[in-house]
């Protein structure tokens, strides 16, 4: 063999060996459980997952539009419609479903008069939607209760594990939930358990650094501090909780000064199982626990604290505060896109007057990315996400994308186990923290030409595939809902349980 041919063969062999080894390295990284970042990870160093410093800015990453206005009771809290039964005088002991059938014409739901609703605020909300959009929301809600929800009884038998896991989380966390609710059971509960001795703080900046470290010790992979904006809060209590009666005005006391924002992503392992098998309840619970730990810590320093969390509920609107604190930027799907987890982040917040230094917002180019991407809007099963550019977000005082929350929630109610989360699962930012995705993210957020973002969006569509909104809808014949990806094997109850 000539020397030239020898080197040629050696080169080919080296490339082949290198390629195979790179494949193995990639596989090990992809399969590494630590890339499920933030998911029940107990401790990280602040800023370990993503250094926000180069992206911090003095300007909020949106345009000021309109006048900020506190949120009305029903305008953006349509989830309260899930307690629609409270809006009627249902005889004690009578199932709500049976009651409804006795007061409405099930064959002509569209003509059900709003006057049968006891709650005048809710009736006004339905009337407002009818006036503005010509959409009979009330009839749609009645249809969900009378037609869609009974369907679940048939489907549930095939999704036994799905329900068992969700209920296990819910049951275990309901213990904590009761605990959380009791901690905010009155307006002055912020002061309950506050240490008699109030420690003076040497330096708010240093205190903020400490709070961030403590927050990560408590389990939250992101801890950011915000100066609270009273305009980004509920005007009236959406329910009889937190020391308020339903509809009571919420006054902002002076000690609601700063917010310590924490949270957690939903389980990465179930991401492809959206809409039905991608769970929320585990992150609800953990995020609430982080807030409980932090509020207790603050109280022991002698300062009042109040939890705003999934289980304890909220007085403040989280997305604008998260944006102001630099947790991320609000995306097309209305959720805050964090650099670490994309929109897959369930937040909580501790409100206090402990002297702190608020963080700055960040600009990682989410707005430009979302302008081009639109994957969430194109796949949204309820078509609740706009395909247009940013517009004024009602009452916020800035522009962005506002989803049709009520339309979104109606699809929630159609999915077994409640909820959808497709827009979280399909977002190109919702990726595990392995070399591939963090490298792509780091290049995309630095490339202000938008070319990288366009390339990544193309790859997302081409490699991960695209589903139509109809794909996620229920098919009577197959008794199945389409999923974003693969159903996690541990949800496949028929592989483990005998048919009864």
């Amino acid at each position, binding site marked *: 063999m000539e020397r030239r041919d020898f080197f040629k063969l050696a080169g080919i062999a080296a490339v082949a060996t290198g390629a195979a080894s790179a494949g193995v390295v990639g596989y090990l990284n*992809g399969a590494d459980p630590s890339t499920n970042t933030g998911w029940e990870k107990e401790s990280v160093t602040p800023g370990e997952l993503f250094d926000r410093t180069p992206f911090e800015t003095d300007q909020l990453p949106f345009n000021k539009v309109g006048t900020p206005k506190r949120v009305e009771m029903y305008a953006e809290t349509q989830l309260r419609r899930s307690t629609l039964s409270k809006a009627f005088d249902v005889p004690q002991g009578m199932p709500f479903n049976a009651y409804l059938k006795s007061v409405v014409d099930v064959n002509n739901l569209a003509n059900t008069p709003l006057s049968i609703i006891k709650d005048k605020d809710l009736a006004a909300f339905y009337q407002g939607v009818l006036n503005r959009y010509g959409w009979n929301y009330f009839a749609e809600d009645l249809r969900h209760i009378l037609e869609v929800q009974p369907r679940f009884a048939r489907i549930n038998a095939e999704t036994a594990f799905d329900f068992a896991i969700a209920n296990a989380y819910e049951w275990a966390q309901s213990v904590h939930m009761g605990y959380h609710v009791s901690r905010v059971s009155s307006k002055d509960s912020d002061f309950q358990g506050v240490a008699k001795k109030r420690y003076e703080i040497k330096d708010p900046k240093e205190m903020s650094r400490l709070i961030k470290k403590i927050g990560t010790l408590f389990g939250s992979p992101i801890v950011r501090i915000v100066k609270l904006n009273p305009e980004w809060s509920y005007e009236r209590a959406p329910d009889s909780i937190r020391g308020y009666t339903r509809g009571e005005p919420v006054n902002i006391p002076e000690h609601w000064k700063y917010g310590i924002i924490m949270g957690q992503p939903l389980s990465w392992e179930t991401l492809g199982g959206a809409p039905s098998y991608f769970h929320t309840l585990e992150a609800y619970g953990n995020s609430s626990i982080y807030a409980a730990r932090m509020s207790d810590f603050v109280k022991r320093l002698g300062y009042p604290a109040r939890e705003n969390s999934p289980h304890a509920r909220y007085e403040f609107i989280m997305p604008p505060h998260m944006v102001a604190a630099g947790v991320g930027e609000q995306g097309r799907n209305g959720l805050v896109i964090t650099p670490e987890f994309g929109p897959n982040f369930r937040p909580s917040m501790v409100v206090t007057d402990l002297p702190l230094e608020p963080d700055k917002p960040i600009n990682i180019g989410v707005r430009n990315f979302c302008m081009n991407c639109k994957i969430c809007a194109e796949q949204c099963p309820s078509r609740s996400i706009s395909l247009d550019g940013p517009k004024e977000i009602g009452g916020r005082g800035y522009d962005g994308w506002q989803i049709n929350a009520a339309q979104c929630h109606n699809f929630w109610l159609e999915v077994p186990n409640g909820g959808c989360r497709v827009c979280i699962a399909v977002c190109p930012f919702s990726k595990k923290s392995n070399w591939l995705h963090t490298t792509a993210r780091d290049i995309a957020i630095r490339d202000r030409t938008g070319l990288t973002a366009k390339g990544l969006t193309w790859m997302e569509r081409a490699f991960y595939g695209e589903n139509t909104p109809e794909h996620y809808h229920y098919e009577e014949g197959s008794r199945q809902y389409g999923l974003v990806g693969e159903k996690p094997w541990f949800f496949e109850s028929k592989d483990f349980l005998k048919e009864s």
Partner: protein
Amino acid sequence: MFELIINSLVIISLLIAIYALFNYQKEKGEKLAWWKWTLSILWLLAVLIVFAFIGTAIGEGSPQVALRGGITFLVLLAISGVVFFRFFFVGIKREQRINEPVEQDVN
């Protein structure tokens, strides 16, 4: 330990490939310009990245991404590899032949 070995193997393979390319062009009596070297090394790195991409996608439970992305990138690599090889070596040979002095009949 296994990770250290496998990571080392990637780097060693890359270095051997560069060394082999260096000697190959030397044995052919050619000298690659700096920008051809740059492109060649970038191509080698791209090969490693594409295979790492395929492995990562499989590892994180997205075999369809590995398949679709793998095919796309491997086709691009194959095309660019053939173009580079022909352009860098076959092209040089032809260029050299054209520039070689024509032997004159002294008789």
